[in-house]
Each structure stands twice: as structure tokens, then as C-alpha cells.
């Protein structure tokens, strides 16, 4: 268990976000789900997540460019690390490790390991 680490899941698919939530909760994280990048901005302030897990589907549409930019700005300002699932390039990506990627399809143990890695926690 990793105490009160908080994860915000941004994924438009109800099925995969539900699986993610259940998996993360069972690994001791507190998880909250947002369907879109816009929705995530509101939750960000309230929930103050340590990690934001964003599925590529949440921001792939070209019209979501400005939403992506504002999401990255708010997320990094809040100090949260971002884990992108799939191939979504986020504007303003930095080389400081605050944004990590995990290719799809992934295994859930892999995902949990990655979250642990980016939060510098080592699983037993």
C-alpha cells in the first residue's frame, strides 16, 4: 500500500477508466475519473492529484489542441506528474520527467509499476 497517493484518470471510455480506477484503488491509490481534459481541469483544483493518467483518446482530436495546452499548464503548475497512455504528444512537454509515456495496449501491472516509478516510490 502506498498511503494517500492520489491519481486522476482522464479517459473518455467508461470501461477502461473504470478498470483503471478499480486496479489503482486495489493498489492503494485514491483514484478519481474525468471523461475529458476540460472536466479534468475542474477536478485538478479540488482533488490535487499526485499523478494524472491521461489516455490518448482524451485529447487526440485536433480540436482539443487548446484544451491540451491548458491541461498541461495547469497540471504541471499543480506539481502533478503526468502519465500518458498511448501516443499523445502534449504541448510543452519537458525533459524533466514530469511527463511519462506508456504504450498501448499495456498490462495493468506495468501501469502500476510506471506510476510507482514516476512518483519515485518502489514497490515491495
Amino acid at each position, binding site marked *: 500500500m502506498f498511503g494517500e497517493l492520489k491519481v486522476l484518470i482522464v479517459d*473518455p471510455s467508461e*470501461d*477502461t477508466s473504470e478498470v483503471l480506477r478499480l*486496479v489503482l484503488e486495489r493498489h492503494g491509490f485514491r483514484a478519481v475519473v474525468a471523461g475529458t481534459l476540460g472536466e479534468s481541469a475542474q477536478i485538478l483544483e479540488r482533488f490535487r492529484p499526485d499523478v494524472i493518467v491521461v489516455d490518448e483518446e482524451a485529447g487526440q482530436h485536433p480540436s482539443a489542441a487548446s484544451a491540451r495546452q491548458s491541461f498541461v499548464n495547469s497540471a504541471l503548475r499543480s506539481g502533478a506528474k503526468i502519465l500518458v497512455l*498511448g501516443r499523445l504528444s502534449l504541448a510543452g512537454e519537458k525533459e524533466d520527467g514530469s511527463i511519462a509515456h506508456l504504450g*498501448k495496449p499495456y498490462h495493468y501491472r506495468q501501469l502500476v509499476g510506471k506510476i510507482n516509478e514516476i512518483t519515485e516510490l518502489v514497490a515491495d
Partner: protein
Amino acid sequence: MPSLFVIRGEDQGSRFELTGDRITLGRDPTNTIRLRDSEVSRRHAEIRRTGDEYWLVDLGSSNGTFVNGRQITQHKLANGDQIQLGRSLLLFTQPIEETLTFAPENVSISTGEESERKSRIVRSIRPEEGSQIFRWPAESPDPSALLRAHRNLQVMYRAALAASLTTDINQLLQRILDLIFECVEADRGCILLIDPETRQLEPKARRLRYGEAKDDQMIISRTILDYVLTHNEGVLTTDAQQDERWDPAASIVQAGVREAICVPMQGRYGTVGVIYIDRFTPPHRAIERAGAPSFTEDHLKLMVALAHQAALAVEDTRYYSALVQAERLAAIGQTVATISHHIKNILQGIRGGSYLIEMGLAEHNEELIHKGWKIVEKNQNRISALVMDMLTFSKEREPELVPADLNQVVDEVVELMQSRAEEMGVRLVWTPQPSLPQLVFDPEGIHRAVLNVVTNAIDAAAERGADGLVRVRTELRQAEGKVAVIVEDNGPGISREEMRTLFSPFVSSKGSRGTGLGLPVSQKIIQEHDGRILVESAPGQGATFILEWPAIYPSATHQNGEASP
């Protein structure tokens, strides 16, 4: 095998091989070649095979049958003929039989000193001098010059026409050689193209005026070729020496004279090859002619002009082929990327569901197992639908027309979608047309077409929240002789921009939930029934999809349980 390639119209890109002795063309599905062009008659024309010949016969069509722009009632088809039926344009192609007239492997380039020594250039001209073939010296009007200019103009026109009628380089080169042989008395001719990769000259077409054994070699002097390519000039050569012409003891009396014309194929961007022709005058003829040459400067100029025309056509054909190849590769790449993306998401769903099942089993948590199984099942359905849509979309299929009850087919769709609509908070209202008679259609295809449209309508209506509504109804429009399935939703409507790509494959407004194949598949199925899908929508005002096709009533054949052809 001869074939027809649709180069314009609804079926653009389709290729039909001409098998059998009678091939019918028309809009009706019973034709051997069915064209989905509303301006094509139900039974428009027929291709009849007689031995190796293919005849195109108009079957009393409303809009006529045209070959190379001229209306015909019957016409013997030749390679490269363009057939116009309604708005559709088809290209007739026939593989060239390997005969004595086409054996490029029998052409070789000599480096031997023997042949090198004999030939000499007697005249050379620059490519721009080729245009002089149309000139008529005004100062000293010579009727024969006018005739020559007129004849040359005709030859050039025919060369331009030949170039426009084919996109096959080999066919084009053979036609150019045929034309040259009509106006120049050459014995042998060949066209060598520069391979774009190796930059080496490769024989591509060859023609002989008289029969010759297949293994006879046509040897072209390397020196002459090098001169033509280096200087970019057309040359007239002979192996007779200047001073030999009047000398009865000279070599021409013993061995005859071989004259040749070799011209560069100068295109827009460089030289693409050379055209070479030659003629052998036997000793007795050479003496009779008193050394007068067979090939003249006029011939050389005409050849230069023809070679330029052929070079432009070769460049165009190569450019066109490269473009088609690039487009094909791009389309394949896009298709593979899109399909892989969908499969990846489905696979992720299956992994998620499986992981929940695994957790449920470990925790003895039945609710978790059930949840996981539902996700696995849903993704199984998604991949199955994707595969079915891809199969329907990718292959040419004939609808299996049988008498069936349209209300029953739509009823099954509504029943199948009812629980999904409820889950999404959408009211699905179904109004069948009372007393709808049995009609002839492909029930499985129509089921799929309607299902895709209803699925989209539910997804759209769900965006309205609790007020989502989808209405489905059937309508027999007796006056129009049509039957329709109408699907209305009160979703956000379709923007003008979305409307443009509504039926484009792999374009979806539903993100990862949509494959972008649903509507193209529905459209394909309805078009296979000779019908169409009409869409009425405005942003914010929902959308109405009308799937309509001709109402066909069962005939006596159908009543006896036989499907229509």
C-alpha cells in the same frame, strides 16, 4: 486476360476481367459488369467475344454507348479504347501477345569494332528542328511540301491521340513504332528507354516490317547511341562511304547499304530514351537507286518530333504511375494505422476486463468477475463488428436477394438495440409500416445497414441526456416504387463540415468509440440494392437518415423459393 478498368464514375478504380463469350454491362445487378451509375441503362451494352476479337455492342441504351468520344452501335475493341457509358468511363486493355513485332530481348547494343567502323553520321539535327515538319516554304510554294506538312500534322495528331489513350508505357511505345512504320519505310525499329534507376538503356519495344526468326538480333551501334544521348541530336546514318556510291566495285555492291535514324526522346525534364529505325537496301536495289538514300532529312525531322511526343507521354505515364503508387501506399498506410488503432483499443478493453476477472477470482468477488466479463464481452462484440464491417466494405459482394419481411428485419435491429438505448437513457420508438408486403432484398445486408445507422442515432441522441429520442420507421412509397427505413434522432445534429466526410471510411466523430466504417458500410449495402442514403440535418436540430431503395416484389420464381440471380 482483357479487362475493363473504370477510370471515371461511381465505380472508379474497379477492374473487371472479361471472361466468357458475352459480358453484359449495365446498372441492373444481373449484368456481368454492374455499374452504379444512374445514367447507365439497366442493360446498357454487351461485349461479345469472337475468337480473339472483342466487340462492343450497344443494347439500345437510353444515353448511348461511346468509344473514344464517338457514339457506336457496335465496335471492335482495341487496346486503349475508352468506353463511355453514362458518366462512367472505362478503359479496355488487352495484353499484347508476344509476336515477332515485340521482342525487345532481341535488341542489343554493339560495342564491337566491326559495326562501329561501318556506320557514319550523314546528318544530325537538334530536337527543336523537329517542328520544321509543319513548315511550308512561303517564298517558293511547293504543293508537295504542303502535302508533306499536312501528312506530318496528321501523324503528330495520331501520336498525341495514342499517348492520351493509354497509361501503359509498353502499349504506348508499340503504338509509336506502328505510327513510325506507317510513314517511314523502315525494316526494323526499336525503342530503348533509360532505366530511371540504373541509367542504362533498356530495349522496350521492337517492330519488324517483315518476318524474321525470333532469335535474330537487332544490333545498334553504341557509338551512335552515345552520340545521340550526349549531343541530344537526332542522326541519320549509313554504312556506305561517300565515295563508294558511284563505285561499282565498292562494298555496297557486294553487301548492300544499311541506313538508320536514331533520335533522342527528349522530354520536359531530360532524355528518357532513344528511338532507332533502320533499313537495309540489298546490293541490286542499291545499284538501281544509284546510291540515293532511303531515309531523308524529312524523315529525321518527323522522327525527332514523334520522339518528343513519345517522351512527354512516357514522362506523364511514369509520373501518373508514381502518383497512383504513392496514393495507394498512403491509403494502405492510413488504413493499417486506423485499424491498428481500433484493435489496440479493443485489446486494451479485453486486457482490462480480463484483469478484473483475475482480481475477482483472487478475491472471490463475483461482482468484479461479472464486471470484467461484461467488458470482455463488449470488446468481443466490438472486434466482431469491426471485422464484419471491414469484410463488407473491402470486398465486392452481390446482395443475396430473397423475399423477406422488412418490418421483421428492422424489428430485430430495434430489439437488439433496445437495451443499449435504455442504458444510455435514450427512448427508441419503432413504427413499422402497417401491412408492408414481402419484398425482395438482402435481409442480412439491410440488417447491418440499419443497425449501423440506428447505433449512430442512439449515440447522438444520448448526448441530449435524459431527453434522448430515436424514432425508426419503415415506409413503402408506392408512387415512387421505393421502400425506405427512416431513422431520426434528436442529437446535436451534423455540421456542414461533418456532412462532407459523413460517408468517408475511417472518419468518425465518435473518437475511439467509432471505427468510421459504419456509415460507409451502410451506404455500400444500400447502393448494392440500387438505393441511396439521404441525410437531413442541421446543427442542434438532430438528424434524419433515410435509407431507400427500389421496392422489388417477389416474382413467381421467388414464390417457388428460388433466389434471384
